[in-house]
């Protein structure tokens, strides 16, 4: 059961996120099925051991094998709810449980067991042909599966109708039993050969990466479907007629079947349409109830370590779901596949390259979930910008508090002392003057008075007057006031860009232009300084402001200068 821990790891988060939704109720149902199987198997084992007999322990192993099927089937079911594979494996387990009823010494159980004796063989054939979706797509496959059920159910009756004893026995006719067995074996042989042929054909048609999974699985499957009838037929020559060895070997071969299936299923990617169908089902599921995108991808790709990365504006690196820059160590066996939507990069999927190194497949999964990824990206971006806006407001408050406390308050305390001690009122007056200047500068920094009193053009002229570098100001279409939030955002974008340029880039001139059309305010700040302005820092805060108004902001910085452009919708 090498795949089991893996399966459980990836299943655990989805259970948490699923809550009481669709997957929650599925999980509950699966638990009920599992407990029911456990109860039946436990009862059977207890009765068989109680009845005693030479091979009681061997007989008791059949329900145990049935439990292996049920367990493996439930895991596969849980893992890929849209595939019927898990259901089929559970049914096979159920068939073994029913056939084991034959070993209990009651007429009813004996009858049920006798009828279901070879059903498990049919289910195994169906499992092989229906791998990996659990569905049969070709007519040939459906016919073979129908035939195998006919063999196990319709050609079985002679074995119990003409048995020497048993609840269903109508006559003791060993000759008819033998004849029936011959017919069953002959038809069975044809079905087994047809099954093998279909499986070989599928292996040959498969792509290389699928073949990696299909070959071991189908090889074992063909071995199983051949071994069971052939070993029964050759029992006398190989095992010397010992039902003991026949039983042990058949049981061992059959017990390994679900293990092989779950291993194959856990390797993922065996059948692309299977995976994509899984993601498609996820996309269509109720959003509240379904597990997260990451969990769905992890389950589909069979890689619990799958990470979602997002491309957000103003950030050079990809970011994680918390908006923090993500570092993907490619040297440590991690692979990264970019996800695009309509020609624009929205994010990436990082995966364990040692576990599944099939970028093309992950790229395809990425194409399916690109829209969902993009939406999650917007959420990530929104959350991050909200956090930054809140943090910026806090920083601003801290700065104001510090300026008031360290500057103005200290100055006033000093003035109070001075007023008591000095004989020179002009010194006190000068101090008061300085305090007023300081207060005005502080208020100006928080919200420039001209912006409140006169609007954007006046505020920008005022800004120009206060800077040491010549600013060429070109304003068109701004004869009327705009909404205060737009004016404020535009003002602070320009002032941040201009002050940045003057402080760091040492430009000879800065050109500021604002143009208002009917529904848009375009602004541009271009300097001829040394460039090197990054989108982060103060400019990031400005971008957040602009985005909050539904606008866009772009910073383009080269050695020849920096250009900050913003467009803000301002339809009145």
């Amino acid at each position, binding site marked *: 059961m090498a795949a089991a821990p893996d399966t459980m790891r990836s299943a655990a988060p989805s259970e948490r996120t699923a809550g009481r939704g669709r997957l929650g109720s599925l999980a509950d149902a699966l638990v009920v099925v599992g407990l029911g199987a456990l109860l039946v198997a436990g009862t059977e084992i207890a009765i068989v051991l109680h009845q005693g007999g030479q091979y009681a322990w061997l007989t008791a192993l059949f329900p145990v094998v049935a439990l292996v099927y049920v367990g493996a089937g439930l895991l596969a079911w849980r893992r890929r709810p849209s595939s019927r594979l898990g259901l089929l494996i559970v049914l096979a387990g159920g068939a073994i449980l029913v056939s084991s009823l034959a070993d209990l010494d009651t007429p009813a159980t004996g009858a049920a067991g006798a009828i279901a004796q070879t059903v498990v063989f049919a289910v195994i054939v169906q499992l092989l042909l229906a791998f990996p979706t659990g569905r049969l797509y070709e007519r040939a496959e459906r016919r073979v599966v129908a035939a195998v059920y006919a063999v196990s159910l319709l050609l079985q009756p002679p074995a119990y109708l003409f048995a020497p004893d048993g609840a269903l026995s109508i006559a003791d006719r060993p000759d008819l039993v033998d004849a029936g067995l011959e017919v069953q074996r002959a038809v069975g042989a044809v079905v087994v050969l047809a099954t093998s042929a279909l499986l070989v054909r599928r292996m040959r048609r498969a792509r290389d990466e699928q073949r990696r999974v299909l070959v071991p699985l189908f090889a074992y499957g063909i071995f199983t479907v051949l071994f069971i009838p052939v070993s029964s037929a050759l029992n006398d020559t190989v095992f010397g007629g010992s039902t003991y060895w026949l039983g042990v070997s058949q049981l061992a071969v059959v017990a390994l079947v679900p293990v092989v299936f779950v291993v194959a299923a856990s390797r993922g990617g065996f059948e692309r349409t299977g995976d994509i169908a899984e993601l498609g089902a996820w996309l269509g599921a109720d959003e509240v109830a379904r597990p997260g995108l990451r969990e769905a991808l992890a389950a589909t790709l069979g890689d619990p370590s799958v990470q979602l990365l997002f491309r957000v504006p103003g950030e050079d690196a990809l970011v994680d779901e918390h908006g923090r820059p993500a570092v993907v160590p490619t040297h440590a066996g991690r692979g990264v596949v970019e996800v695009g939507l309509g020609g624009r990069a929205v994010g990436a999927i990082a995966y364990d390259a040692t576990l599944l190194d099939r970028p093309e497949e992950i790229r395809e999964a990425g194409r399916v979930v690109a829209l969902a990824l993009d939406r999650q990206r917007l959420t990530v971006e929104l959350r991050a910008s909200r956090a930054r806006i809140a943090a910026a407001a806090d920083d601003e408050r801290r700065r104001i508090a510090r300026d008031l406390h360290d500057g103005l308050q200290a100055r006033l305390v000093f003035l109070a002392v001075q007023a008591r001690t000095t004989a020179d009122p002009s010194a006190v*007056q000068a101090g008061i003057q300085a305090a007023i200047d300081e207060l*005005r500068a502080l208020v100006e920094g928080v919200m420039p008075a001209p912006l409140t*009193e006169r609007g954007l053009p006046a505020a920008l002229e*005022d800004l120009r007057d206060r800077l040491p570098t*010549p*600013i060429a100001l070109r304003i068109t279409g701004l004869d009327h006031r705009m909404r205060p939030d737009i004016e404020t955002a535009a003002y602070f974008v320009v002032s941040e860009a201009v002050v940045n340029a003057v402080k760091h880039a040492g430009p000879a001139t800065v050109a500021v232009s604002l143009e208002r059309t009917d529904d848009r305010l375009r602004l541009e700040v271009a300097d001829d300084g040394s460039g090197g302005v990054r989108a982060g820092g103060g400019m990031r805060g400005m971008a957040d402001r602009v985005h909050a108004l539904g606008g866009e902001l772009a910073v383009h910085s080269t050695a020849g200068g920096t250009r900050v452009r913003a467009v803000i919708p301002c339809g009145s």
Partner: protein
Amino acid sequence: MLMREGLRLVLEQAGFTIAGVAEDAAELVHRARELQPDLVLADIRMPPDHTDDGLRAVLRLRAERPELPVIVLSQHMQRRYASELLESGERSVGYLLKQRIADLDTFVGDMHRVVDGGTVLDPVVVAAMIDRPRPGDPLAGLTGRQREVLALMAEGRSNAAIAERLHLAEKSVVRHASHVYAQLGIEESRQGHRRVLAVVQYLSR
């Protein structure tokens, strides 16, 4: 409110009579029309909008009566306000930062100058105009002394006052002034009060 009452107290002590007090811009216009005062003193920022209501009220009054002496007080320096006030008529106009009230003697002197038909611009406003960086700055050719003369001209000082302030002969002031005119390309024939507007308009370009 605090400001208004403090100002009333200080001005009454300085010998002025307070004809009336207005709570907001509309009332200011109404009372000034009614009382016909010798001087209107207004804060730029007033109710109801707390933007530039006071300035707009004063400009309205000046439009009706261009010779009405007005002083507008501002929390901060704004070049544009100075230009707009001067454009409403160059005589009897003052634009000062609020904090100038603290230096009561100068403030009262400024009020009298405005009542007498003079022009008063806050030195900070003028300094900002002169020091403002411009591409190909024509002020770069001025000497330090000429700059001082230009600044005082812009503040609305007469040649005599400039001479006294800079400890120069009035003749030298006139000489410096003509040099400034030549440098800036302003017509020298503009004499007296009109020169403030010319200088300020030039500086605001």
